[in-house]
């Protein structure tokens, strides 16, 4: 792993150096990449601290039994409903869903439910769906949700079962 880290650090350092030189010499492609980086970083830095605070509070306040009951192995259909509802209120994007899903998993949620949660938070966050409908029409959004959501749930069930049978473990953090 040491070597991989070294490569990553070298890559990041090279990138930073490239940006500095680009700005110093007025190299336009490099400047544009720098602006892209800045604008995306700002977007994420706006969301991530708030999301992680909620994750921290979740970790200390929500009991393992509660998560197990609603999203665990025995949760049944209710588990999927919870996963979709939780996803609907997730802010940001799929990148916020990963740490949340990780927390849920480490508190006893089953694979099928966290996979449903991740995909559903990509496709049916309520604020985003409203925004989408205002640009592409309500019919477009409704078709998208009605087709994708059942596919997400069914594929998550199958994949979750497969992972459980194979005893898949996600990386410990």
């Amino acid at each position, binding site marked *: 792993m040491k070597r991989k880290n070294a490569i*990553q650090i070298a*890559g*990041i350092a090279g990138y930073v150096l490239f940006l500095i030189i680009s700005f110093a010499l007025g190299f336009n*492609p490099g400047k*544009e*990449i*720098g602006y*892209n*980086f800045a604008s*995306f*970083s700002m*977007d*994420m830095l*706006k*969301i*991530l*601290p*708030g*999301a*992680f*605070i*909620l*994750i*921290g*509070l979740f*970790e*200390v*306040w929500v009991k393992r039994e509660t998560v197990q009951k609603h999203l665990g192995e025995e949760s049944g259909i209710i588990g999927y409903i919870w996963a979709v509802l939780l996803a609907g209120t997730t*802010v*940001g*994007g*799929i*990148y916020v869903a*990963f*740490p949340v*899903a*990780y927390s849920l998993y480490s508190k006893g949620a089953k694979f099928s439910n966290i996979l449903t949660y991740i*995909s559903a938070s*990509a*496709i049916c966050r309520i*604020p985003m769906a409203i*925004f*989408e409908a205002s*640009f*592409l029409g309500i*019919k*477009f959004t409704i*078709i*998208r949700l009605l*087709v*994708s959501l059942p*596919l*997400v749930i069914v*594929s998550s069930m199958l*994949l979750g079962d497969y992972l459980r049978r194979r005893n*898949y*473990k*996600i*990386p410990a*953090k």
Partner: protein
Amino acid sequence: MKEAYFLYVIAGLAMLISFIVNRQKTLRAIEIAAKRFANILPYFLIMLILVSIALFLLPDTFITRYLASDNKFIAVLLASILGSITLMPGFIAFPLAGILLTKGVPYMVLSAFTTTLMMVGVLTYPVEKAYLGVKLTIIRNTISFFIALIVAVMTGIFFGEIFE
């Protein structure tokens, strides 16, 4: 970004209530939040670097040109590939899709583009891998890609773009 304000109102209130009920636990929550955030930050950094480069190589004008292709089915395929390898926030993606719609790009192409944009993340791979592991990340993205194609086809059928 109204979403962000909403998030901080909720997070602020939750923290305040938590602090009133139990100071110790709240401090621990902040500690967990800071530690986890710091742990994942390098992966986000790598992702942001990839995004900044990809966005330069594939600007809006490029996407517009390829999505407006004459053959609908090729356009759907191109749209889903572009959607998979780019990453843009909804407040850029949907207005762009709206503009493409007025330029005559079919709904099914826009559906392929926006759905893969949201569900499939080649550029979010560093972050996703850190949480889910390599194998699950690859499987999840592959399944999502096919779901997006199915959604695009169904969109085409419902908007009368496939069977005219």
